[in-house]
């Protein structure tokens, strides 16, 4: 329970700090870079290395690469939709969330097949 609390606090501080950093910069495209800052990874990988070792964290990092590719596809589609159609940003980002899950899990299943 203590570890969960520590991770929650560190995650909250790191993620909100990067979000605030993004608010400071203009133009918007540059500020948007901070939306893809490795905030969750920075918050959690240090503790993971400490408790589970380097090899375990390296496996997480390999999968994180797939998650990052999925994030790229998702954010690109969100941007394309928002700049071309008159949709609400919260509705668009939430409605397109299955894109992230689809790409991330699709790439993961390819990785599993490739490794077998």
């Amino acid at each position, binding site marked *: 329970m203590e570890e969960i609390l520590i991770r929650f606090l560190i995650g909250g501080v790191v993620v909100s700090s990067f979000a605030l950093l993004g608010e400071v910069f203009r133009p918007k*495209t540059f500020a*948007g870079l901070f939306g893809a800052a490795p905030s969750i*990874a920075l918050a959690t990988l240090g503790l993971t290395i400490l408790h589970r070792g380097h090899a375990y964290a390296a496996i997480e990092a390999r999968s994180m690469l*797939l998650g*990052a590719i999925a*994030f790229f596809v998702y*954010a690109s589609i*969100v941007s394309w939709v928002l700049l071309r159609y008159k949709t609400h940003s919260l509705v668009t980002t939430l409605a397109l969330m299955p894109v992230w899950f689809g790409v991330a899990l699709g790439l993961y299943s390819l990785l599993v097949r490739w490794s077998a």
Partner: protein
Amino acid sequence: MIVKASLDSLKEIKPHEIGMRFLFGGTCTVAAYLIAKHFGPAVGGLFLAFPAIFPASASLIEKHEKEDKAAVGSDGTERGRLAAGLDAAGTAMGCIGLCGFALAMWFGLPHQRAPIVLVEASLAWLVLAVSTWLLRVRHSDS
């Protein structure tokens, strides 16, 4: 295109908006840990690049732009959507940096000390994200 930094924009942010990001960030970090614990590091690692606060951030950007326009008596709906779309385009470019971070961690961890790998990976994110942005800006200017 010149990058400007202004701390004044932080004054526009309300405490509950920071609280919401803190809550989403903390929750997603714990979720990534629990998923890794139950399904293994290969599945858990995917969630280290989960767009945790992306929907909330896009919504707040749209809201702030609308409020700014409303303050001068205009309808900022279109501008708000445009700002959120441009921010998302920047986030997509930042994802190139995120891939660099993951690669640096993946290949660095088995051979180097953890603090060194974390610093190298963070620098890889920064350099790749900013370089991608600069290339995109140059390409759109030409």
